[in-house]
């Protein structure tokens, strides 16, 4: 049922973690995020370049032979925790987390040598269009159709919603159904018949788009009809990274709540001396550390290609999503009226939590998979 090896962070991991913490503390203060709420700031190319130039983050988990740093998911997890902590608005999850992962998992030499390096250090990033309006991230739900023209060029039609950075990404990848199954296509951003609309996100720091295609030219990526296993596994990777982001964000909510509880006085004493508040904070700690344990365990499982890894991801994702939502809501309660203002960052976390709970499938959907994996009859 579970893995027995001791799986803990090494000393190098901890140093890396501290480096990331220091960088984001400085580079992404509250005022940085506030601009995404107040202005029209949508994407910060300078920040994206810095992530690459200073740490090679976009290619962190890409094998060295394809231009990356050859790290594992566990390192990506540590990065995502820090990005979640400061709520960095970034194409990182959609591009480095999801699209790159799917491309790598295709295991196709041409893809690895032509497309993947583009996402490592050219300043480009990718969007993967795979969901449908039902929000169901499963194979059956892929509704874009691709009609073949004999060579590698197909014509794609259909609508995909909730595409991370889909209106901006220089590299647009689309999962579509051909006569032989699910296939992956590259679509030129300025292709005829393509319409990309930025959606009004509940969480303005999470950029989402609707991509509409009418007979749009698409170039086959990898082999026709065989893309689903790679997409499925890439979605697992991305779900785990999202869970890591949720851990980091939840921990920040806890830290803010604890700090406020220490300093805000009522009835002549700090509100943190009231047990109703104290116990909420203790429960935040319980959820944060539990979620973190599950996320690390799943990352190690994926990195070691453990056969139970997919289930471990379901567990981590289901738990972390619920945990972050709970902590974000209780943060508002601990803060009282100030927590309900536009001014205070509490709602940024509440929005991120609510929106993330639906990205890559809900906790309920994860639990449906867990029940099936436990051998319960369907």
């Amino acid at each position, binding site marked *: 049922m579970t893995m027995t090896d001791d799986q*803990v962070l090494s000393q190098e991991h901890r140093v890396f973690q501290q480096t990331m913490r220091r960088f984001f503390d400085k580079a992404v203060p509250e005022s940085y995020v506030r601009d995404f709420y107040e202005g029209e700031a949508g994407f910060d190319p300078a920040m994206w370049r810095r992530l690459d130039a200073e740490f090679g983050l976009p290619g962190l988990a890409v094998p060295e032979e394809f231009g990356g740093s050859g790290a594992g998911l566990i390192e990506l997890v540590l990065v995502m925790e820090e990005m979640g902590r400061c709520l960095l608005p970034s194409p990182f999850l959609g591009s480095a987390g999801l699209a790159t992962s799917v491309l790598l998992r295709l295991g196709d030499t041409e893809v690895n040598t032509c497309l993947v390096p583009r996402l490592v250090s050219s300043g480009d990033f990718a969007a993967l269009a795979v969901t449908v309006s039902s929000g169901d991230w499963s194979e059956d739900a892929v509704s874009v159709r691709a009609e073949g023209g004999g060579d590698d060029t197909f014509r794609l039609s259909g609508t995909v919603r909730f595409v991370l950075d889909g209106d901006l990404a220089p590299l647009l990848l689309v999962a579509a159904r051909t006569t032989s199954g699910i296939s992956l296509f590259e679509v030129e951003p300025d292709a005829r018949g393509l319409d990309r609309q930025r959606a009004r996100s509940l969480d303005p720091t999470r950029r989402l788009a609707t991509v509409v295609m009418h007979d749009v030219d698409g170039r086959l990526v990898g082999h026709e009809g065989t893309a689903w296993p790679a997409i499925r596994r890439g979605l697992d990777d991305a779900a785990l990274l999202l869970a890591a982001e949720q851990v980091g964000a939840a921990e920040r909510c806890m830290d803010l709540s604890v700090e406020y509880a220490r300093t805000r006085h009522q009835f002549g004493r700090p509100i943190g001396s009231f047990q109703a508040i104290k116990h909420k904070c203790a429960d935040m700690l319980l959820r944060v550390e539990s979620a973190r344990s599950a996320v690390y365990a799943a990352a190690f499982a994926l990195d070691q290609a453990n056969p139970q890894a997919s289930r471990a991801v379901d567990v981590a994702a289901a738990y972390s999503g619920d945990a972050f939502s709970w902590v974000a809501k209780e943060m508002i309660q601990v803060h009282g009226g100030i927590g309900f203002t536009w001014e205070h960052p509490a709602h940024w976390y509440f929005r991120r939590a609510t929106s993330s709970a639906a990205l890559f499938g809900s906790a309920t959907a994860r639990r449906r998979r867990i029940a099936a994996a436990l051998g319960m009859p369907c």
Partner: protein
Amino acid sequence: MSREWRASTFREDVRAFIARLLPRGWKGVGALPVGDVDAFVTQWRDTLATAGLLGLSWPREYGGGGLSHAEEIVLAEELARAKVPGGAPWDPMGMQMLGPTLLEWGSEAQKAHFLPRILRGEDRWCQGFSEPDSGSDLGSLSTRAVADGEFWHVDGQKVWTSSAQVADWIFVLARTSREESAHHGMSFVLVPMDQPGVEVRPITMLSGEREFNEVFFTDAVTHRENVLGPVGAGWKVAMTLLSYERSHVAATLPIQYEQEFERLLALVERRGLGRDALVRDQIAQAYTQLSVLASLGRRVKAQISQGGPPGRESQLIKLAWSEYHRDLAELAINLLGPEAMVVEGRQGPFLPYTADYPGAPISSGAWIGTLLHSRSDTLVGGTSEIQRNICAERVLGLPR
């Protein structure tokens, strides 16, 4: 004669050793006929003792195995996995709590005298901390020990003392000076039970069993040298003891609860509820919680094995598991439906397990017993409220 175990191959060696001793088709101690369990456990304890597997991490000079905490944890895991207990029901108090505390605080004479007797099963121990007016607020306790010549004289009352009815000795947290400060002026006194000044009155538990007691001390005596640690340092010694309790729990509970979870799945199947969407979600939630806590436990366990200081997550283990188990028992009772109104079969669990014996039949009695017992999980060893206070104050730094 006790054999030598090697750390490098310990897991494989001990796994093979255990497998060789158990009968073919072994399903767990719970699958034995009820009348055979006691005899089996007694014999099994002898086997472990002969093999040098009791007190594995204790120095050899005191009858231990001379290995480290890491192997001790591996052994506990392998025993749990093989569905056999690590000793007799009263052993945890002596072997997992008092023993390591003696090693840390005891004088040479105390170690040489008490440790081998614990391993040989000659001394059974019980824990005398709680009092009628001092439970969560242990620092307010009022049992006194007064030195007079060669002896300490103990007066006062302890309560909820598990296994006192079978114990030979009790470790008592008692006041030894008049200092008013709660945590000073206490000593950790070892008192023999078999004397006129000690009276044990059983208390029937909510489950109907009699496993805890009141213990009255009326001019009870113990020899002058039977104080563990310095006189006045009793609080510190007691805290050491409680931390040993926690680390053992972190290692063995996940395995016990994984086995229990398999029984829950079997219950779902027997009740024909596997297709019910709500039940599936509840089961998946329980599984999620179980594996999250197992991961949390592994993080803590790894810190202990590597000899490092446990991180802040170790403080969460007791709180997390007790509430998980309380909720799981309620889920099982829900799944039983009307069967939960009638006690069929025997009513587990029995010491030292908190889940039912592994391999026990899946009867309503088994789950009803688990439900009843689970209400104590969130009380013993510091209530959930106290655990939350500790997390908030000592880990997060909130004001008292």
